């Protein structure tokens, strides 16, 4: 127990990094993903095709590769060449990648809404924007809560990938101690930390699902 208390400091520091990556990515990737989804269902084939290509690229290559590319290769790309600090590079990669996944969840939700809802809104005089904001999206949010919860829990665990840019997240902090002290205890403590984080998320999503359960469809 003393040992656990002793390694708590670096592990908590690692948790701080993990949480930062998680929160910033979540807060940025969800709205970005929603925008992508709205463009993806656009009437204009060029727009939806472009978004489609983007989603294919982001889902079709490893997140780790994207992170390495943004950090190491982006500075050498002509015209847009820019060198980002490691933390920023990681966040940019995570947001770009997760927005693609969230976009697909939103798209599936938007397309699951019955055409009658659009027609019902239309004959009452609602514009497309009003229909989306007032009628369609509120129903989408309820329907996509389970897959959103899934994806968001995956995000918590994916944050451990930032170790490739040599940042001390929770897992890397634990591994450092394991290699120094020749004991696997830090791994177990790290696992407990991850479990607590994902449990809190699960509870939060359950709470939302309950809140939305006031109406059936």
């Amino acid at each position, binding site marked *: 127990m003393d040992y656990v208390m002793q390694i708590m400091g670096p592990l908590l520091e690692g948790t701080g990094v993990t949480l930062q990556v998680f929160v910033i990515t979540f807060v940025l990737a969800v709205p970005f993903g929603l925008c992508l989804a709205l463009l993806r269902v656009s009437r204009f084939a060029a727009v939806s095709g472009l978004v489609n290509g983007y989603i294919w690229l982001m889902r079709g290559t490893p997140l780790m590769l994207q992170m390495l590319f943004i950090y190491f290769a982006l500075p050498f790309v002509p015209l847009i060449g820019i060198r980002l600090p490691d933390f920023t590079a990681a966040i940019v990669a995570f947001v770009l990648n997760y927005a693609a996944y969230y976009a697909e969840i939103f798209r599936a939700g938007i397309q699951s809404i019955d055409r009658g809802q659009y*027609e019902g*809104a239309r*004959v009452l*005089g609602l514009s497309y924007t009003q229909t989306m904001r007032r009628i369609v999206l509120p129903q989408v949010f309820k329907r996509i809560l389970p897959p959103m919860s899934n994806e968001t829990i995956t995000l918590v665990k994916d944050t451990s990938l930032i170790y490739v840019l040599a940042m001390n997240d929770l897992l890397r902090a634990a591994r450092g101690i394991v290699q120094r002290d020749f004991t696997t205890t830090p791994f177990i403590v790290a696992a407990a930390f991850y479990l607590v984080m994902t449990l809190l998320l699960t509870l939060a999503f359950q709470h939302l699902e309950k809140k939305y359960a006031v109406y*059936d469809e």
Partner: protein
Amino acid sequence: MNSPMIHALDVHKRFAAVEVLKGVSLDVGKGEVVAIIGPSGSGKSTFLRCLNHLETIDRGRIDIEGETLVGADETALCRYVADSELRRICRKMGMVFQHFNLFPHLTVLQNIIEAPLTVKGLRRQDVLPKADELLRKVGLLDKRDSYPARLSGGQKQRVAIARALAMEPDIMLFDEPTSALDPELTGEVLRTIRELAEERMTMLVVTHEMAFAREVASRVVFMDGGEIVEARPAKELFAAPEHPRTRAFLENML
């Protein structure tokens, strides 16, 4: 003479290879209740949906209260007016669907006040008395705060009617309003529509309810194969159908 509430002239509509409307013309006067009957696939619902631009027509002309929604101009056989005009004109018409299309995430009251708040920009306290009055009229004031899923089919349809009326339309379009209902629930919906007829609301009702059409409609239009076969005062059409196709259809229905 005043212009008719609805003036449709030679309306053509095609879905891919199928010509659904082959030149439909119909005028509806103020306070008239017109029932459209006919076999399924005859184009009656499509015609109704063309009137408020849920479907776009390929050729022809539609005027609503004397204002052109779509018609021929110098350059095209059939051109719709600009989007904002289109929406303004279509707002003169309320519509009730076969499958209600209530908003499931909103309560009965919220369903009714949504459009007056969002589209007309009215204030909540100004629309609430009107909403309550409409709910009382359709007999559902006690369901004010229920969600649609808690209502029976007949109740849902009555909410849908109240929701359409909340926008104070001059014309009501009904697209098979009782077809999705259990037989014992059609009565309450038809009663509500009948009350509107008594208030001289201009209505166009696509229906399979022959008894209702005979009793409430001032005129009955029989459609078959994308055209109007016969359009006459209800009593005449039911008593002595002129066209063999009308006769065959009515015999089948009874």
